[in-house]
């Protein structure tokens, strides 16, 4: 269909190439137009961005229809030489296969809806056209990311996506928090990216310059990828390094800290980038490189994912900021996906990416709608707006049910698949029992905090009457995307069978299109009994979560304050997010960057702030009357003394840095001469 369309209109060019270039190029065109002349266009040029992304969207839909008709074997590639050196040739190319097309569909659909939504959400912003330019730029980078057929191109777009994310998070850069959050997101993900780059370099050197996915896989499959480093096989090491990139982008533990802060950006951005697409890029990367990971690497992935899932879910319990709750939920869900991929559930993990993109984007957009109406993000100031915003309420309810894993909603199908796979994985390897355990626990917690969110936001009495009176339903450009996305959150959209057990398919195998299209590369059949256990377990967990939420936040038979009082130390730990940020602040920023001053003020900073202030709640709760040891003398002599020595030596060494370039050059010249003399002597 797509090809015939392009053959008709552009007969002289290769239809698929021109289609792909158009798909990739339209958002770029939108970006270029918006960034240069957007301001002068009618309505700030939003129609340019929306129009261009709609073209991309339409193209991906056509592509998807083509894919459905031609089946999972569909693959199309093209490539051309980019760098041609005597011993090395770098080609750039486009790879289109089912994974790519599904990703394209997700990206362009969510992008298009979010663009549409942004028209309503951002209409008062002074940098309206700039905002759309950045959005277009993001869509361009993301499409490029999934179209790339080699690691190098993927890395380029990977960084472009990061840049777009940075620009959009700190879009309201007048707010210092937003600017800080942008920097934080950029730098934290960069840590992961360095790992990924090292991974790419390992692959590059081990395979003598192979960067194409297919060629890397066949190289690995032939067993040529040898080499060891410190007793770990280089293949595993490269896999873990690549995964590090995914850890950064997908906000997995321990690099998850940037995502909650990224909520400082506009809400549609959170929906598009930080829920549906960019953070899923990590999952996409792992999916794409799936055959590359060794069992050891996969175990690392599974543990990281499952731990992140439970870890983030607990953090979401106590938050009152509606967007941050969703952000932690996103981290948790990404952890679930990673866990799925780690235990080998290739299809399930990716399936969850697709369903999650829909309902999480929907949740964020609903949250945006609420924020738009109430002008606050604090759930404590909301409440009772169910009647005032019926569409938002309904759609958010549907998405919440999907996220909580209730049957007949999409989240149930995919999450259940992952949990079942992980359970059977643990049944085969009982030592890894923690993985499914974390998974199931996080399911229960997810249901709890999501319903907490719903109850606090939509039910009960309005807590802030002034804001409540002001509230109103959003305009149609904002509600339409909500409706579409909530429709996409229904299980019926993804599978013919309501319980998603695959075998019970109603309309044949094609109706379960995600599963149908993604033939697992190493299909290992697991016993279905695990699935049944998983179904029961997860439903029980979700039910418990919902029940608790109902009791605490709707009926209020259980007082949340009392519970918090009772488990004070846990509560405090959770509200402080396990002090991860503080830990990083202390470990990275102060230790690494301010060594001198830190030493001089050792007792001030570390003992007082981190140990006393930071760890105080724990120390107090465990042993309230532990002796306070006063080691001032030691502090002053040893610690301050160290600081003084460093400072004094720094003062002396500083004199070398005169600022006179000629002296530097002279030293440089002297060094060159010295090296030359040494070389001739040796």
């Amino acid at each position, binding site marked *: 269909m797509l090809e015939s369309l392009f053959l008709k209109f552009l007969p002289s060019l290769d239809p698929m190439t021109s289609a792909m270039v158009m798909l990739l190029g339209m958002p770029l065109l939108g970006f270029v137009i918006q960034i240069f002349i957007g301001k002068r266009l009618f309505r700030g040029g939003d129609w340019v961005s929306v129009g261009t992304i709609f073209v991309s969207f339409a193209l991906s839909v056509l592509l998807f229809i083509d894919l459905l008709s031609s089946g999972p074997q569909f693959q199309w590639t093209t490539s051309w030489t980019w760098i041609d050196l005597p011993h090395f040739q770098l080609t750039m190319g486009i790879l289109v296969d089912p994974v790519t097309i599904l990703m394209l569909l997700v990206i362009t659909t969510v992008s298009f809806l979010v663009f549409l939504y942004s028209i309503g959400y951002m209409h008062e912003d002074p940098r309206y056209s700039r905002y759309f330019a950045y959005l277009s730029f993001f869509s361009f980078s993301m499409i490029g990311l999934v179209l790339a057929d080699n690691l190098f191109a993927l890395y380029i777009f990977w960084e472009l996506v990061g840049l777009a994310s940075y620009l959009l998070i700190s879009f309201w850069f007048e707010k210092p928090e937003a600017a800080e959050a942008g920097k934080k997101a950029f730098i934290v993900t960069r840590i992961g990216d360095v790992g990924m780059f090292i991974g790419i370099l390992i692959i590059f050197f081990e395979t003598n310059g192979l960067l194409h996915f297919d060629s890397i896989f066949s190289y690995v499959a032939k067993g040529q990828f040898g080499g060891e480093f410190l007793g770990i096989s280089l293949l595993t090491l490269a896999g873990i390094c690549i995964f590090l990139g995914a850890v950064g982008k997908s906000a997995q533990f321990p690099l998850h800290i940037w995502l909650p802060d990224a909520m400082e950006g506009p809400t549609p951005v959170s929906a598009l980038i930080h829920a549906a697409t960019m953070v899923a890029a990590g999952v996409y990367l792992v999916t794409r490189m799936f055959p590359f990971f060794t069992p050891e690497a996969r175990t690392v992935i599974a543990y990281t994912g499952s731990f992140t899932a439970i870890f983030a879910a607990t953090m979401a319990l106590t938050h009152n900021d509606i967007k941050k709750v969703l952000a932690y939920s996103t981290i948790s869900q990404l952890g679930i996906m990673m866990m799925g991929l780690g235990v080998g559930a290739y299809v399930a993990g990716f399936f969850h990416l697709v369903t999650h993109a829909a309902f999480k984007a929907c949740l964020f957009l609903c949250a945006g709608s609420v924020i738009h109406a109430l002008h606050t993000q604090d759930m404590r100031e909301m409440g009772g707006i169910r009647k005032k915003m019926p569409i938002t309420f309904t759609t958010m309810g549907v998405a919440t049910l999907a996220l909580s894993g209730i049957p007949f909603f999409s989240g149930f199908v995919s999450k259940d698949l992952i949990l079942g796979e992980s359970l059977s994985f643990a049944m085969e390897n009982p030592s890894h029992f923690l993985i499914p355990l974390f998974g199931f626990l996080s399911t229960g917690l997810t249901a709890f905090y999501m319903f907490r969110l719903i109850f606090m936001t939509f039910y009960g009495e309005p807590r802030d009457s002034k804001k409540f009176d002001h509230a109103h339903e959003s305009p149609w450009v904002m509600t339409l995307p909500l409706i579409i996305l909530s429709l996409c959150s229904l299980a019926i959209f993804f599978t013919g069978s309501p319980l998603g057990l695959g075998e019970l398919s109603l309309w044949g195998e094609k109706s379960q299109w995600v599963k149908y299209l993604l033939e697992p590369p190493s299909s290992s059949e697991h016993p279905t009994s695990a699935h049944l256990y998983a179904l029961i377990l997860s439903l029980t967990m979700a039910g418990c979560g919902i029940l608790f939420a109902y009791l605490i936040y709707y009926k209020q038979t259980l007082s949340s304050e009392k519970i918090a009082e009772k488990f004070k130390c846990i509560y405090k730990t959770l509200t402080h997010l396990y002090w991860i940020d503080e830990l990083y602040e202390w470990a990275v920023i102060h230790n690494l960057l301010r060594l001198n001053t830190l030493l001089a003020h050792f007792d001030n900073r570390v003992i007082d702030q981190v140990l006393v202030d930071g760890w105080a709640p724990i120390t107090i709760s465990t042993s309230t009357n532990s002796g306070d040891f006063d080691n001032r003398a030691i502090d002053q002599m040893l610690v301050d003394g160290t600081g003084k020595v460093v400072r004094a030596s720094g003062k002396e060494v500083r004199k070398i840095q005169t600022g006179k370039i000629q002296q530097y050059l002279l030293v440089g010249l002297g060094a060159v*001469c010295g090296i030359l003399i040494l070389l001739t002597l040796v």
Partner: protein
Amino acid sequence: MTAQDVFFYIFALITLVPAFVCVFHPNILYAGLSLFGSFFGVAGIYVLLGADFIAATQVLIYVGGILVLILFAVMLSKNIYGAKFQDEKKKKILPGLLGLILLGFLVKFILTTPWNMTLTDEAPLPTVSRLGDLLLTDYLLPFELASILLLAALIGAIILARSK
């Protein structure tokens, strides 16, 4: 020794003696002026190497452009002939020494490296049109980039030089 070789030594002298003056003359104005000879000598060397267009460009850009600009800049500073603008001698000792060592190594490397010379002694072809073809084909990107570089330099320079 052919006539060409004689001319090489003449041009080398014309290049190096003024360069020497340029570096070591205490008066900055004379130093700048001596560059004139040096640039001309290099142009002669280019001619000997069969690069006629490059030679003329050397004269046009360096003598007609850069040197004029440098002289303007030299004349900016009042009192060129005063003691303040005379460089102290001792500042030259260390760089001179290091420079000599570096030169020694460079010469050694030049003389010991087995150069893969494909010497063509026939008269060089007309270079200009070949240069033009290369600029339009193989070196098109640098050619266009040169324009961008010049644009950047132009805008940067006029912003810097503009009065506040």
